[in-house]
């Protein structure tokens, strides 16, 4: 119904627009193209704590140590050498000669001290500062009675020592994490409230532009401590990209990698397609466990027999099938990729009849109805529904309450007495078994929502944790894991294998600390 001239103009407009969009999208060979679903709310390594913000902070910053290429040991990064005293109380780092921030300024031990102190300042509101709380002098610094952290000592221009109040054997691994990244004072001052979006550090890239919610671009840091790296001239990160669409873009060669793991719905298709299955990159970090918590303070879950029965009632093979083979049944809380895991244990064997019998003898009547809390993550919902079916088969009726993550957290943290069953997951920050026991299973642990408390287990854990990394430590934790499994405070479900999807041209590795090695990424 449009007049003819108008129609012609309209079509012309469309054609030009489409042509230009093709031109604009023309590839720049040497730019790393990243996608993210979530908006990056901050690149500040002392504040970042999400799956998408950790790798982002690693674009701009780096710390004293990092993981080696095999992810087996920690090697120096900004530091040239480091050592830990035999008693585990003193960590000494010597910075590399002439190592600089991207602005060109030399990094000194004063910068290291300032950076760690900054993390503990109240106005930083760091959610991860607790990782370094064992440093001597921290409590006094936090409550204001001290103006500096006495445990961090500047020995000379390039040497700094950290003295702890008590040995924490996993501490060295935490130096490789974003909370251990070095942040320069002048950048924080200059940016003021906007520092989250005006990063400046010693990492592989420097910030070029930051359009909030839309796009972040960066260029190579000419002062990066490793010559010849990064390979790429710069990067471009597009935000707000729906994961399924991101996969399409990467498949089509329009992007190189997405910060979001491959969604459940896409995984079977990719893995089955020989043309692209090689582009799946397993994550080295974020060893994890899916599990269902019992509120151990209420009946009948205060009875270990009941808890064991419910463990036996779950068909873990089916869960693995639902997850398209992307998981390993869990025999206990420690992922098998983490040292300290008990390799002699096997997952509870699926036996609904035995479960039923055990429940009966424990006095659980048919028709027991309980509530399971779960968030709205699609994978969790699928797992939850399988559990509902499994428990129904042994006479336990489970009602699902699925709530948004905000409400979920509020309920589990602030109203733990209303809980009955909770389905949740845990991602390890660093590959040490203490990162599972301390928060989740210790009496009063910050994530111990089921209020499980066993003095003897706590004792076992304390003994195991006092060992420095080595065979003794792993053996001791192995025993702890066996004891935990016997108590069955949870239904142990599975460990998921998470994958990134990369373009065919990209060669990149994953690391346990920051998930992606940006500086080492190259083209095939």
């Amino acid at each position, binding site marked *: 119904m449009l007049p003819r001239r108008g129609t012609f103009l309209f079509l012309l407009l469309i054609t030009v627009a489409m042509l230009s969009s093709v031109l604009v999208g023309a590839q720049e060979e040497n730019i790393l193209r990243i996608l993210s679903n979530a908006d990056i709310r901050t690149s500040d390594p002392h504040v970042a704590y999400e799956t998408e913000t950790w790798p982002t902070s690693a674009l701009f910053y780096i710390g004293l140590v990092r993981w080696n290429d095999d992810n087996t040991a920690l090697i120096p990064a900004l530091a040239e050498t480091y050592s830990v005293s035999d008693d585990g109380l003193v960590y000494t780092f010597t910075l590399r000669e002439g190592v600089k921030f991207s602005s060109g300024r030399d990094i000194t031990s004063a910068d290291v001290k300032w950076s760690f102190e900054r993390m503990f300042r109240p106005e930083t509101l760091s959610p991860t500062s607790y990782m370094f709380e064992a440093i001597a002098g921290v409590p006094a610094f936090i409550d204001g009675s001290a103006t500096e952290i006495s445990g961090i000592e500047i020995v000379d221009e390039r040497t700094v020592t950290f003295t702890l109040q008590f040995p924490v054997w996993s501490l060295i691994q935490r130096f490789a994490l974003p909370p251990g990244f070095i942040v320069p004072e002048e950048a924080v001052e200059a940016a003021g409230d906007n520092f989250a979006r005006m990063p400046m550090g010693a990492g592989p890239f420097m910030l070029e532009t930051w359009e909030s919610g839309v796009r972040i671009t960066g260029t190579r840091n000419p002062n990066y401590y490793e010559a010849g790296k990064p390979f790429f001239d710069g990067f471009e990160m597009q935000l707000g990209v729906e994961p399924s669409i991101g996969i399409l873009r990467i498949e089509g060669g329009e992007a190189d990698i997405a910060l979001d793991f491959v969604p459940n719905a*896409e995984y079977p298709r990719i893995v089955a397609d020989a043309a692209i299955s090689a582009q799946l990159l397993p994550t080295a970090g974020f060893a994890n466990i899916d599990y269902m918590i019992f509120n151990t303070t209420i009946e009948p879950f205060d009875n270990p027999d009941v808890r064991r029965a419910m463990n036996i009632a779950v068909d873990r093979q089916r869960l693995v099938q639902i997850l398209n083979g992307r998981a390993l049944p869990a025999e206990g809380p420690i992922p098998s990729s983490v040292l300290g895991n008990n390799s002699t244990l096997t997952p509870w064997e699926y036996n609904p009849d035995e479960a039923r019998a055990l429940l009966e003898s424990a006095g659980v009547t048919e028709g027991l109805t309980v509530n399971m809390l779960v968030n709205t993550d699609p994978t969790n919902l699928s797992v939850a529904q399988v559990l509902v079916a499994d428990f129904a088969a042994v006479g336990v009726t489970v*009602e699902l309450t699925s709530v948004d993550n905000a409400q979920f957290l509020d309920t589990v943290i602030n109203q733990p007495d209303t809980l009955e069953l909770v389905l949740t997951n845990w991602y390890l920050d660093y590959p040490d078994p203490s990162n599972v026991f301390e928060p989740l299973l210790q009496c009063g642990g910050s994530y111990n929502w089921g209020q499980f408390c066993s003095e003897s287990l706590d004792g076992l854990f304390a003994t195991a944790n006092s060992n420095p990394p080595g065979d003794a430590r792993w053996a001791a934790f192995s025993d702890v894991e066996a004891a935990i499994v016997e108590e069955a405070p949870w239904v142990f479900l599975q460990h998921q294998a998470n994958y990134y999807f990369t373009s065919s041209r990209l060669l990149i590795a994953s690391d346990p600390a920051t998930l992606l090695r940006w500086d080492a990424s190259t083209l095939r």
Partner: protein
Amino acid sequence: MQPNMVKLNTRNQNSFWGILRRMPRAWIGGCLVLLVVLAAVFAPLFSPADPLQQFREGLSATGTPLPPDGQFPLGTDHLGRDMLSRTLFGARVSLVISFIANTTAAIIGTVIGVLAGYYSRAVDSILMRITDIILAFPAILLALGVGAVLRPSIPVAILILTLITWAPLARLVRGQVLSVRERAFVESARCIGARDRRIILYHILPQILAVTIIWATVSFASTILVEASLSFLGVGVPLPQPSWGNMIFEGQTRYRIAPWMIIVPTIAILITTFGFNLLGDAIRDALDPRTSQRL
């Protein structure tokens, strides 16, 4: 205008049922609606399986849903459950929710719209302010707010959907009433001294009935889909009980490996919508035959 020709038995032919009976639309629409309602009512009879049962053989070896075939005439979903059974049982939930929500919203909306349109400025102002507030209110927030205070369930979903739906209709109805109010026949009724209630019921309501019925029938389909977004927020029909809305929610991202997971409930919604719409059109035209005459 036809000259007044005398016809035998004109009364039956021109009565509401008479007209309706002769409209093919009424029959087709009626049959579709009947089909859907019967499917919902007799779901246990027609379903080959329990909608909640997760079949071992319902997934491929790699854990992907099975396409329509043999044991599963409409395929399976991501947990190995039979799509046909879930669709039939889902019909119950979705139809009930959508019907109750829309009817309630239609009643509330019409009442408020009529009162606002017919009566004095003060009444109009107050009612319209309330309506506007609900209208301008972001539906997501409303859904989350209500769902957060009350535990998600079917009655809560109905409540949320009703709250979201009534306001646009109220405004539309008010607009219609404003126009109709000034028409000649209403004026004359007032002149004769007819009371307000009589005027509203016998003169104004029939005029706006058309708009209301249209709105209700189109809104019926969109309500089912809004229920899908409620599932996104976690305040829809609680899983694992199926509703067409949450079936779409669970199937959305799997459009490449299992397109039937979305296609099946969508077609179900389409059939339902089409049936109700045809029927609604026919009823409206039978009530007021003029609207079926050509221009």
